[in-house]
């Protein structure tokens, strides 16, 4: 499962609309335990596409999104049993 999500996220980073990658990231964090790679994908998205103008001046928006999704998903996973 982890490997499949990693491959899917690499493909989405290079070829798919950003929102597809964002949804995949949520799914991966919810379904895979401690999916730390999510944050790495956020950093890579910033490295690939961000500029000094960023998003309203903030150039690490993808990293921040990945961290928030990772933390929320970890918290939700603790309270749920799959």
């Amino acid at each position, binding site marked *: 499962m982890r490997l499949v999500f990693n491959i899917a996220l690499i493909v989405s980073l*290079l*070829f798919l*609309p*950003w929102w597809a990658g964002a949804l995949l990231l949520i799914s991966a964090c919810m379904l895979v335990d401690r999916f730390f790679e999510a944050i*790495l994908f956020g950093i*890579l998205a910033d490295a*690939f*596409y961000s*500029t000094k*103008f960023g998003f309203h001046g903030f150039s690490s928006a993808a990293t921040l999104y990945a961290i928030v999704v990772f933390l929320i998903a970890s918290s939700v996973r603790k309270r749920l049993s799959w």
Partner: protein
Amino acid sequence: MFATALSVAALLIVFSINHFFPAAFPSVLFPVASGFWRAESATVGWFVSMAEIVQSKYSLVTENRKLSAEIAAQNRSMLLLSALQSENDALLRDLGRAAKGDYVLGAIMARPPVSPYDTLILDIGSSDGVAVGDKVYAEGDVLVGDVSDVFSGTSKVSLFSTPGRTMSVLVGSSTVATEATGKGGGNFVLTLPATTPLATGALVRLPGVKPHTFGIVDRIIVDSTDSLQTVLFRSPVNLSQLEFVEVDRTPHK
């Protein structure tokens, strides 16, 4: 627990490298990624041509007639436009203000909506003479952005419609510059006094000797209780369907 701490430490290191040395990862990863992007363009091109082949002949004939009529109409407009362009160039040359551009064509490898930041990744870089700050044009005359990062064989273009980015523009026949703010995806917003006469479809230009098309007014929102009007305009080119752009390598002052 140890594995978690190790992962967090590794991510912190990776984030710090990307934050303090923003060119480090792209300069290593772009040569790898550009191979995939080029392969993707070729594959998509093959599928598109296959899809065109299996289209019905009737729809092709109809489309052909429609396009022929459009081309004929545009050719008539072009006659006037090229005459005006020649006259403008001659006047600028006589006044010693001829615009000398040194353009290079770049293929787009990644564009919105793949890029969440309204950026383009081009297949040309410092080896092609591209430098940071070079202006980027689409479909000839439409200014869409400028080069923000350059690597050996690739470059990153920041579009002017990047959310939060501001630009000084001229709207309609007005000669008063006003500030437009990017809203993403080739869309912009600006505010003008409600008394300024403006209509949908008006041209938005950049101030300068050689005027460049920047956008077309799409919607005007006027609140009867407000003294300002909000103008929404968009770039005349569809950024998500662009395949090539031109980069002006003229050294900037």
